Each structure stands twice: as C-alpha cells, then as structure tokens.
C-alpha cells in the first residue's frame, strides 16, 4: 500500500494502523523532507512499541528514555515538530488529551 491508496484522517494521520508498513513510513517521511536513518528507525520503532503496549501515543520523554536518544537529538531527527512527525511516520494516532 502506498500513500496514494491509504486512508488518512483530516490531519494526515493514518486511519488504520494495520495499513502501516516500512515502505509507507518512507513515503510519509519524504513528505516532511526527512530521510530515514537507523537513528530515526530506533525512535519510530520505540514509539510504535509503546503505543501498542499502552494504547496511547507516547510523549517525547518516554520515547527518549526507551530509545536512549536525548530529546534534543530527537528534535534534530524530526525538526518540524517531532511529536507530530513521529506519530504520522510511525502510523500511530496523534498525541492528544481528553478534549
């Protein structure tokens, strides 16, 4: 499945997490001018793992701790708003509150 035939919500987040694939992540990343390196993948895989365990998209501090990547470094990897970009590329829901 590619970005052309996958369903996203009004804000561009993947609607169905089962549609996600590494290839799709590459396509999402290209949209934001991010070239995925091993460092990026470490962060993305951790975000996906935490979301799948806990049922909610994690904050950056939690991602930083588990991936052993300092928050500053996460900002360098995903410069234009890492919380949002990580969620979009990793195919998990956007981090949100109860309202």
């Amino acid at each position, binding site marked *: 499945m590619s970005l052309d035939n996958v369903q996203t*919500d009004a804000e561009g987040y993947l609607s169905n997490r089962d549609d996600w694939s590494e290839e799709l992540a590459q396509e999402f990343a290209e949209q934001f001018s991010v070239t995925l390196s091993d460092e990026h993948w470490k962060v993305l895989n951790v975000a996906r793992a935490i979301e799948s365990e806990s049922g909610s998209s994690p*904050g950056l501090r939690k991602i930083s701790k*588990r991936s052993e990547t300092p928050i500053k470094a996460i900002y360098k990897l995903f410069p234009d708003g890492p919380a*949002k970009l990580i969620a979009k590329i990793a195919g998990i829901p956007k981090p949100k509150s*109860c309202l």
Partner: protein
Amino acid sequence: MKTILILGAGTAGTAIAHKLRRRLSTEWDVAVVDPSSTHLYQPGLLFLPFGDETEERIVRERGSTLGKGITWHKDAVKTIDTERRRVELAEGEPLSYDFLIIASGTEVRPDMIDGMLGDGWQESVFDFYTLEGSKGLQKALAKFEGGRLVLNIVEMPIKCPVAPLEFAFLADAYLTKRGIRDKTELVYATPLDGAFTKPLASKTLGYLLKEKGIQVETEFMTGEVDSEKNVIRSYDEREVPYDLLVTIPPHTGARFLEDSDLADELGFIQTDHHTLAAKNAERVFCIGDATDLPSSKAGSVAHFQADLMTENVLRAIDDKELEPTFDGHSNCFVETGHGKAMLIDFNYETQPLPGQFPIPGIGPLPLLKECRRNHWAKRLFRLVYWYALLPARPIPISPTMSLAGKQLSAAAEAGGE
C-alpha cells in the same frame, strides 16, 4: 490472617480499601500504606489560587478518612518484591501480602526540568497541583497587577488533563473581576497541537479561547525555565516570556517504582486496560493515577475502577478468571469561568459527546455545554467526595459508560473518530 495490601491512600486507595473491607470477612486484613498524615481533596487546588476555596475545606486527617477495620501503616514504601510477595518499608518491618493493590498515584516533578526549581520557584514560578504550590499561587495572584500570565503544560500525561484549561478560564474571570484583564496577556503553552485536540471539542469549544482572549502556543515542549530572563525555552529554541508562570511540571509514578519491572519509563504501572491487573506480576492490581492506562488520571476514573476492581479482586481470591469490565470511563466537570461549567463523559472508545446526564433526554446536567447547574454540581461535589466517594458509599452513576442520551452523530459531523 490473610492480607490485601494497598499502597497509597489517596482517592483510589481509600475507596478500594473501604469497598473491600465491606465485602471481605474478618479473616482478611485490609491494610493501606501511606506516609502522609492528611488526605487532600485535589479538585480544590484549582479554586484555591483564586480565593474560592480554603485549605480547611480540602484537607482532612487521614485517620478520619480510613475509619475502623482498615489497618494504616504510616510509612513510606521502599521496594516491592513480587516474587516473595513482600513490601519493604522505609522504617517499619516488611509487610507480606496475599494480594497487592498499587494506588500510589503520581508525583509532580519540577526537578525534571532545567531551571524550574531555580530562583524563580515560588516567586514567579508556581504549580497548582500541590497544596504548597496552589497556596503560593494564591498570594502571587493577589499581588499580580498585570503582564504576561503564562500557563504551561510541560508534558503529558498529567493528572486531570482539563485542569490547565480550567485554570486559564478561571484566571480570565478572576482578572476581569479585579479590573486588570486588559493589562494581562493570558498565554496557554502546550506540547500538543492545540488547547483542544479532538475534532468535536475544537469545533464546539474553540469559541471559549477566542471569547476569553487566550493565546495558545502549540507544540511547545519546555526544555528549560530561565528565571533570570523570565522566559520558558522549548527544545526547538522558542521562547515564551512570562511575568507569572503557572507550570504543570512532568508527572511520574511514585519514586519507589522508578526502576521497578512493574512500571514503564515514567514509573507508571503497566496495567491491563480492562481487568486492571498488573501486567508483569501475579496477584498485583493497579488503580487510579498510578496506572499507565490511556484513560484520564482523574478521581472519577479511580471511583469507577474501584467499583469494578473490587469484583475482580474477589474473583482472584476465589481463583476465578478476571473479567475485562473497565472501559476507560471518565466523567469530569470543566469550569469555564463566571459561574459556569461543562460536564464531559467519555471512555477509551468514545470521545466526549453532547447530550444529557445522568438521565438520557432529561439531564439535569447537559454534556459538553456550559451552564450554571454544572458549576454548582462541581462545587457541591466536594461533599459527595468526602461523604460518599471516599468511603465508597453507593453513587448512582454506572461505572461503565452509557451511550444513552448522547448525540453520536456530533462526532462524525465534526470529522473525526
């Protein structure tokens, strides 16, 4: 004698202790461990800074909230040994358990942010999630004569996720009443992408921010508080200047859970979403703010969980399979200022929807809509808390969420979920 040991006697720990005490025979010791001699009604911390609540009304001796039949170990927990079913205490002898319930809540951690505990702490930088912070803020607000009042959520998850928004609405009303609203810029800085993050809430409640002139700084992840320059600085080097900073520092689980196998990176217990059993140990449950669940960290959630967890603990005692009954139900009043409030009712799957509560079609409390009745219900809730919720007397609200009386089409119309 068999023992159910409950770590923490806040809202969740106290309610579940009372529930189990009523349901278990005298061959069971229901014991709580909590080092603090007082119990704090936390929703009162929102009103205290504005002089609308008093310390006397929101703090009680812990002994009076536990009553007879519940053993209270006034001590701090050091470690949990789930293999030997033992809890080590800071001072007393270790305690053994047959079943353990972790109800140790959250800790508010200003120490995790560079500079937050610097010279400005309790001078121009306050939190309102602790009694000390809330009292200090009351004095600071009384002296405030205008400038930039900045409210900053450092990171999710936090207790009562709507409280910062309520604080902003109440601050607007308070400053207006004092005649200094036009001299004040009210700023809400959030790590999320908006003050409202769900399509329906953004659509139906966005007017509140506009009407009250609240500026929103989005995707602001605070890395540092610079109390020499009076600015908060984000990881991407944006600066938000303040004259008075009301911060919601990061939250973690209790310190004794920091490196525990039971907990996640922030010290929250990894908990089954529906049975409330701890994922990584036998005979351990978790309730209230201490869980890593995607439900709100709120008193109503603790109350609903206490109802449902009681049944599961009794099943576990009888060696029966646990039932996946908890649905993430949460029910919260949201103060909007000038004597009005909203009520929201939601769960894991369903976002807050408009409608009537608790009786479908009748109310008397409207959902997701401002009105005076909701405000008075919120203010009166303090009495419900002390006399019904904490001692676990019956409250006629279902622990699981009902869709009856809710306008389901509203969510689809707003374009989400």
